[in-house]
């Protein structure tokens, strides 16, 4: 009996969690302009999305491009900065280390809206004209702490003598970093990169405040503007569905790989 309720509870939870997405996915296969109105099965919205045969398709495509470009650049830079920072923090001792760790956690806990507004004020104060560059800078600020958090545990798990062993065998500090530290930190850097990428991808608040007035749109700001103009463009439904499926596939792949690795290590 207890088991039954436990089962019910978990299913209820899953339904509540996923109902909106399922809802959108279902209605991506119908042509109706208004969400919730089923006008028969059709893949026209998908075709429209890819052929660009729709209202304001140019703006949507450029928003998608912007989003991906900004996320890629921000995540890449954040991964480099975050990894270097993690190595630095790892080699610190005592109070300084605690302080830096604490400072690293603040941007993560800080509400995005506050980060966004304060960055906006900073850019205005410094007379930096807002646009691509400011959004990317802001996203790097947002993402770097997450990379640090992903790389630090890898350093802690590492045998403390490994870097020294490389130096001892004749590697310069740079060679030791490239040939020994980097390969060992790679899993942490990759997961840091993925996290940074997704953080940048779905950020709204920070982008909104730092994009300026040049008409730069990412997907999130585009949808926001679009929704305010009166109803979502129907083609967003297949787009959202595709993105969800993409993430789902990615997650499944990562999980299968992790399981395989765990099995290999156990051997």
């Amino acid at each position: 009996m207890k088991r039954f309720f436990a089962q019910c509870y978990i299913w209820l939870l899953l339904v509540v969690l996923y109902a909106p997405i399922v809802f959108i996915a279902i209605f991506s296969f119908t042509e109706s302009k208004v969400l919730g109105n089923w006008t028969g099965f059709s893949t026209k919205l998908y075709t429209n999305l890819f052929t660009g045969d729709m209202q304001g398709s140019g703006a949507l495509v450029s928003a998608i491009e912007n989003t991906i470009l900004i996320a890629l650049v921000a995540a890449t830079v954040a991964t480099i900065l975050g990894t270097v920072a993690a190595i630095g923090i790892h080699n610190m001792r005592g109070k300084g280390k605690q302080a830096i760790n604490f400072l690293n956690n603040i941007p993560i806990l800080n509400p995005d809206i506050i980060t966004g507004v304060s960055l906006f004020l900073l850019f205005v104060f410094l007379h930096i004209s807002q646009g691509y560059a400011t959004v990317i800078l802001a996203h790097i600020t947002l993402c770097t702490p997450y990379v640090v958090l992903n790389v630090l545990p890898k350093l802690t798990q590492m045998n403390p003598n490994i870097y020294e062993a490389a130096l001892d065998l004749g590697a310069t500090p740079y060679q030791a970093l490239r040939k020994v530290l980097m390969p060992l930190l790679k899993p942490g850097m990759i997961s840091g990169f993925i996290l940074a990428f997704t953080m940048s991808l779905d950020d709204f608040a920070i982008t909104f405040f730092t994009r300026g007035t040049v008409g730069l749109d990412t997907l999130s700001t585009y949808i926001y503007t679009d929704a305010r103009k009166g109803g979502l463009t129907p083609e967003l439904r297949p787009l959202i569905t595709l993105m969800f499926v993409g993430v789902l596939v990615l997650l499944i792949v990562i999980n299968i790989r992790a399981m395989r690795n765990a099995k290999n290590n156990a051997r």
Partner: protein
Amino acid sequence: MRMENKDYIIELNNISKSFGDKVILNDVSIKVKKGEFVTILGPSGCGKTTLLRLLAGFGEADSGEIRINGNDYTHVPPHLRPVNTVFQRYALFPHLDVYENIAFGLKLQKVPGNEIDKIVRKVLKMVSMNDYEDRDVESLSGGQQQRVAIARAIANQPKVLLLDEPLAALDLKMRKDMQIELKEMHKKLGITFIYVTHDQEEALTLSDTIIVMNEGKIQQIGTPTDIYNEPQNSFVADFIGESNILNGTMVKDKLVEFVGHEFECIDEGFGENAPVDVVVRPEDIYIVRNLESAQFTAKVKSCTFKGVHYEMFVDTDKGYELMIQDYNAFAPEQEVGLIIRPADIQVMHKERTCNTFEGEMVDETHVKFMDETFECLPQADAKAGEKVTVQVDFSKVDLIDHIEDGTLEGDVHFIIYKGDHYHLTILTDEGYHIWVDTTDIWDKGDLVGINIAPADIKIVKNNE
């Protein structure tokens, strides 16, 4: 001027190193001959690993000079030093296989590929790991990983191989096997080995020369036989092998008094009635049934079989406890005779005969030393602020359980049993050493309160 350098592959001159307030190495000087197997031996925290790390180039000494092969390497970074290290926990590169681990240094030196193949195969054979080239290092056992670590270090053909407790993580049987292999490897390679360990048996087995360290200082340098048979102080005697360490008095040349009896010995030049430490190894005390022919008598307290010999504790006629090892067993409660031959008595200068501190008078009845004010007997014409020397007998220092009730707090740092009492080294929280004689049993690391009665504080004016 430095002609003598040619003989020495390594010279450490007056090396000192501190981390914060803590002095790790205090003016350490070592010379190592080419091809020697040198072991740095000492308890944990004695500075031996720090010394090895300075040699490898991980960290710099605060002062002093490091010369390798006659050249100054004091400020040279690790990758440019002609030494290689075998780390305690192997430190193999987990993302590389056995072959790539060993070839790591060679590839950096741009050694041609077929040459690398040859060297890797040669060193793997040397550590009996042929055919393991393609194995993942994490799939190897601890012993195998250590072999690969050694192979990796010698593949670079260093002038000096540094080994930081390389066998500490292995089980006993494996350790014994590896000891023999290391010794053979040293002979075959002909390079200098500097080996750090806390295991005195390992040091005695492997080394040409042993350097005994404690508290950042060198206690003794010598061959294993020298160190074992002629320890220079009670620390070395206690640390190397089993020993009976006793307070004694050098009555005159070749005559020493301890455990309440006088013994002939072979030591001279201590002066008359000089207080000394006496060391007698447990296997050097002859135990006999015949009481008449013995130098002194004792009653057996316990007798334990140890495989080859029996280990017995006896109470002597004058109330001292001695440890004896003999092939014959003697039953507890049995009266036995004991004989010690002159050559088996090792007489050592005492490092100190009482606690001596630099102090300062606070007023007529108070004196400040070890950063703390103590009450003392009234001192005539003592001026406040006057510098004095304070002496306290070992036996006059009170140790108490309740640290709050002590004038000072500290912890038991080191214990030597002296037959009828314990000689403790206490390290106070402020970093001072106090030596205490007591019959109470304390354990290493115990926290203690320290009191000294006013009458037991002897004050000597510095200008007198």
